[in-house]
């Protein structure tokens, strides 16, 4: 059963500083990937953290008919998982232990230990990192660490999966692999996936919907061919660029030069 997320009149800020003001994101559908793109400091991380209940926010975030903003941290965690952009440093835990702790740490979903272990392993296998299970997080490469971090989010099987630049440290093989996996996951479980990406072509390839954020406002929102256009790129990213389809029909973005602002 696919679920739907509705965001209405969301205000998010830090202290007295407002970053996102009165933002509406109608009907984010489950079963498909939604990409959130935008320049640095546009507010992507801030928005995702607010959706996860990590940043205080005013307004409404509804999952079907559950009002998420009314829930506690533990309540949020039953429905939503957020994968942070920053990865932990200097941790003496193995990949497997870290994945397991994602399941065991919240009282509500304490599973029988054997079941939790099997689930953790299955997740690592699907991400292709089962061979890293017993390696320490602090002895992994940056990309491996990112995959391990992704595993910790996915293993919780949330209804809403929020991924903050999960592929920023990955090589092209793993980028494609992760994107395919995330898309499959969305389809299989009917879950809502919002993924922050800087690679717009990648977003266009895997997401059914692209939301472009600029200065905390929505600059474009829709199917890739609707949202990603030369005027949008000029206005939001300050670049002169062409959007073309390659022989296989995938959107390609060719950036010619930066525009003076």
């Amino acid at each position: 059963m696919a679920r739907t997320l509705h965001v209405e009149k969301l205000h998010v800020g830090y202290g007295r500083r407002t970053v996102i003001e009165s933002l509406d994101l109608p009907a984010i559908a489950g079963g498909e990937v939604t990409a959130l793109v935008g320049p640095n400091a546009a507010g992507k991380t801030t928005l995702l953290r607010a959706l996860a209940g990590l940043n205080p926010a005013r307004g409404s975030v509804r999952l079907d008919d559950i009002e998420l903003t009314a829930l506690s941290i533990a309540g949020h965690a039953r429905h939503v998982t957020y994968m942070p952009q920053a990865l932990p440093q200097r941790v003496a835990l193995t990949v497997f232990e870290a994945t397991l702790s994602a399941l065991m740490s919240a009282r509500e979903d304490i599973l029988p230990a054997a079941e939790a272990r099997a689930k953790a392993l299955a997740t690592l296998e699907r991400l292709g990192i089962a061979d890293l299970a017993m390696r320490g997080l602090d002895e992994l490469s940056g990309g491996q660490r990112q995959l391990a971090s992704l595993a910790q989010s996915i293993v919780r099987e949330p209804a809403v999966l929020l991924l903050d630049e999960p592929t920023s440290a990955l090589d092209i093989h793993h980028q494609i692999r992760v994107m395919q996996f995330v898309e499959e996951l969305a389809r299989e479980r009917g879950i809502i996936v919002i993924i922050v990406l800087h690679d717009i072509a990648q977003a266009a390839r895997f997401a059914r919907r692209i939301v472009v954020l600029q200065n905390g406002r929505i600059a474009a929102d829709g199917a890739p061919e609707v949202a990603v256009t030369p005027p949008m790129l000029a206005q939001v990213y300050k670049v002169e660029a062409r959007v073309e389809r390659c022989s296989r029909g995938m959107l390609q973005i060719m950036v010619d030069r930066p525009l003076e602002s």
Partner: protein
Amino acid sequence: MTDAAATPAPLAAYARLIRRRVAIVAGLGVVMVVALLFDIATGPSNLPVGEVIAGLLHPSTLSAPARVIIWEVRLPYALMAVLVGAALALAGAEMQTILNNPLASPFTLGVSSAASFGAALALVLGLAIPGLPAGWNLPALAFVFAFGSVLMLQALASLRGTGVETLVLFGIAMVFTFNALVALVQFVASQEALQQLVFWSMGSLARATWEKLAGLAFVLALTAPFSLAASWKMTALRLGEDRARSFGIAVARLRFLSLLRVSLLAATSVAFVGTIGFIGLVAPHIARLLVGEDHRFFLPASLLCGAAIMSLASVASKILVPGTLLPVGIVTALIGVPFFIALIFSRRERL
């Protein structure tokens, strides 16, 4: 083995890892018990080991002086060493996790300095809490200040937007503040009071009594189960605060409760034996090198490491200078540092 084939390799490896850690924690327990027995058997009065053990099992067979030596001196000192080591190490381990800082410990974040200030007020200015028996006034004052110092950290932590770095900085600022206040009191102190204060701050097990032992044992028994119950949460917190919160962990609450346990453990220990600087910082590091940071093993291993090191330090304090009981606070670092360095290097070779 038939079921090894059925179990996927990583799960089998994990099961082996768990078994190894259980063995390490059990081994630490054995080391601690041996150190404790060794500690009880050592002393200036040269009682034969056999007599000591017989005296522990059947106190009635002992001569009166031997009974006093074993039951009123050696046993309380030795047990105090174990309990103080355990309490300070557990406090240090929790602090390092919740403050996400490997340098955090009751000593480095001002708890000991605050206790010293309380002791200085009692010894030098004769400050007294009305209604307390004479022997309890100094520990009580030390406790009040030590506990208060962690409560101040606590209050700061509850302000919105205080990061853990701020807490650590604040703790370090407290070290300097209380040290300055102690120096100020020392400046006006009489020669005799000054000497007492210096001796107090060296940390000594000679202040152990059965009542104090009971008090510290009670605090440990009260806090340790809650620490262990929070171990998965603390493990997850190692993955980062955002991560932990997104797993549904109320991090602020976890930090609050943990600091409360830390303040009880550290303040009671420091109040009873004085400043012991090294255990709370290094025992968790040794435990981390041995069992990693799955807190189900990390916390007990820290506790046992602390107890064992402190116990060995107590032995050393009796035999280093024959005929003299050195203040144990001086010896802990001398015992612990070589051990710690050896472990770091042995670990480095393996990598």
